[in-house]
């Protein structure tokens, strides 16, 4: 291939990348734009870019008691992810670097828990929560979210642990390290990007979870997604308000994603770069 066609090809590819990226990001941009509109500007047809920006929607949302929902979401997401890591890291280690006869069965079992649609489990879950007096309680959500993310997290982290060369672990053992030292000083630092990537995915899933939240919580333990549906009313959609609320709801995840970006990319491509 000549240098020229090469450059042309690369230009086309760059253009295409931009196009696809814009396609993905457009709804988000539109949401951001809409959130700064007055409700009347948001409802115009055709849509308009010419409007006087306002923070009115955000103040309305805060007035409607957004913060408690945000706090619930943060608490539930944070704690359930922590729980997943506490249980999942040792499980992933055992299932990858210290396998036994039943390892593949255990892995199959983990996966099988994801096979039942949650709709099928919601009534028993509701009844159990009710009997335990855990309806509208953040702790119920924490347990459920941890349970929901754990199988995925174990599978993901296992694949990262499998990338750890056994010889490196053996070298550490010969160097005089006991199991905890091997784990904390040698294995964990190497798989850290993978664990970060896993944690981020758990955070996203817990943050955006709607079905459990809407069925098992009300005013006390409601999370952000539950708050968002409050804008879909019988009088119609309040686009500007909904956009502002959605923006606030997605902001934390975006920030975490941004911060974790380098880790995430490294974690997700760890297998590729030897």
């Amino acid at each position, binding site marked *: 291939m000549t240098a020229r066609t090469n450059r042309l090809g690369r230009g086309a590819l760059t253009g295409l990348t931009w196009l696809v990226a814009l396609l993905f990001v457009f709804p988000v941009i539109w949401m951001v734009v809409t959130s700064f509109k007055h409700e009347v500007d948001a409802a115009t047809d055709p849509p308009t870019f010419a409007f006087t920006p306002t923070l009115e929607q955000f103040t309305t949302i805060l007035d409607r008691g957004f913060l408690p929902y945000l706090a619930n979401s943060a608490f539930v997401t944070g704690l359930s992810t922590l729980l997943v890591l506490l249980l999942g890291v040792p499980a992933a280690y055992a299932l990858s670097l210290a396998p036994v006869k039943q390892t593949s069965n255990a892995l199959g079992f983990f996966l099988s828990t994801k096979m039942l649609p949650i709709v099928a489990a919601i009534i028993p879950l509701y009844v159990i929560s009710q009997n335990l007096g855990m309806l509208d309680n953040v702790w119920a959500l924490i347990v459920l979210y941890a349970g929901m993310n754990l199988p995925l997290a174990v599978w993901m982290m296992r694949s990262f642990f499998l990338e750890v*060369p056994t*010889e*490196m672990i*053996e*070298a*550490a*053992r*010969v*160097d*005089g*390290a*006991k199991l905890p*030292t091997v784990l904390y*000083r*040698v294995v964990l*630092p*190497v798989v850290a990007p993978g664990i970060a990537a896993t944690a981020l995915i758990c955070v996203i899933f817990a943050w955006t979870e709607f079905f459990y939240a809407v069925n098992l919580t009300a005013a006390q333990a409601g999370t952000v997604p539950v708050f968002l549906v409050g804008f879909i009313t019988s009088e119609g959609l309040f686009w500007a308000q909904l956009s502002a609320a959605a923006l606030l709801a997605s902001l934390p995840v975006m920030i975490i994603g941004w911060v974790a970006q380098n880790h995430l990319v490294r974690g997700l491509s760890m297998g590729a770069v030897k």
Partner: protein
Amino acid sequence: MAQVAYAGASRIYPGAHSVRAVDGLDLCAGDGEFLVLVGPSGSGKSTALRMAAGLEDVDEGTIAIGDRDVTQLPPKDRDIAMVFQSYALYPHMSVRENMAFSLKLRGMSKADVRVKVEEAADLLDLTQYLDRKPKALSGGQRQRVAMGRAIVREPSVFLMDEPLSNLDAKLRVETRANIAALQRRLATTTIYVTHDQVEAMTMGDRVAVLRDGVLQQCASPQELYGTPRNVFVAGFIGSPAMNLLTLPVDGGGVKLGELKVQLPVRAEQGEVTVGIRPESLSPVGAGEDGFDLQVQLVEELGADAYVHGTLAGHADKVVVRTDGRTPPKLGEAIRVAPCDTGEVHVFDPESGLRIGAE
């Protein structure tokens, strides 16, 4: 300093077809000795080494280091250091931290660790790389870090599993010499695994040849080359391999084509396997005593050329070393004779064992 003694040591991998990866190994690496384990792929070299390291169970027999039975001890209590084929460096630690890791775990003071690491770095020419991560090093430098990590510990035994196989040919020759010199200087007992017989022959005080987990012979390189104990060792040591022909015995000799070769030993058997190294054969003039060889392939290596051919009336291949300046042509027939009957090895075709001279 210590010796390493395997006594009837076996490693049997469990499973439907259990594998005797190392089978009743009796072998002793003397104090300060450089012992090389060599054998074809899958012969159990790594397994034997890992048994000494404590990374592999010993299912039968025992292993002793010095005067301690270490069969049941974990790796960290064996006072050994290991160099892995992949080097197995800690990727998140700098070269300095890699080397210091074991010392820190032992609770050595920071100042002492520093001194030790810098000494080792100096010895291995690594001083300028001390603060780099392994991924910013070349293959040869990584190899030296792996060596450094082993020597800072001042262990009583070094165990090395093909430490040079990831290096290019030139660097391998260089590093080979460096490791051998370093070992002589430190006088630390070393067991070194390789499948490269040049490494085995040039580095080892003694070389142990393994096949299918069974020790075939353990001897000095000269002895291994000069008096291989069986057909396997004869064929394995030396490159190109020794010519091995199974021929009927007739009046204390065998017939190679038209040439009658007197056996150096008395053979009771009706047939024997005769071994002659390519370098023990040479072309002779057309009228002289010898046998004819139909040339099928000529490998020219510069100084020498190896001629592959078949013996008239025989299916077996024979390789002959000739002068590289005047190699014969393909399809020609050349006349060949052994340079010296003393270099004819005789083996029992049934058992494969060497006949005569113990």
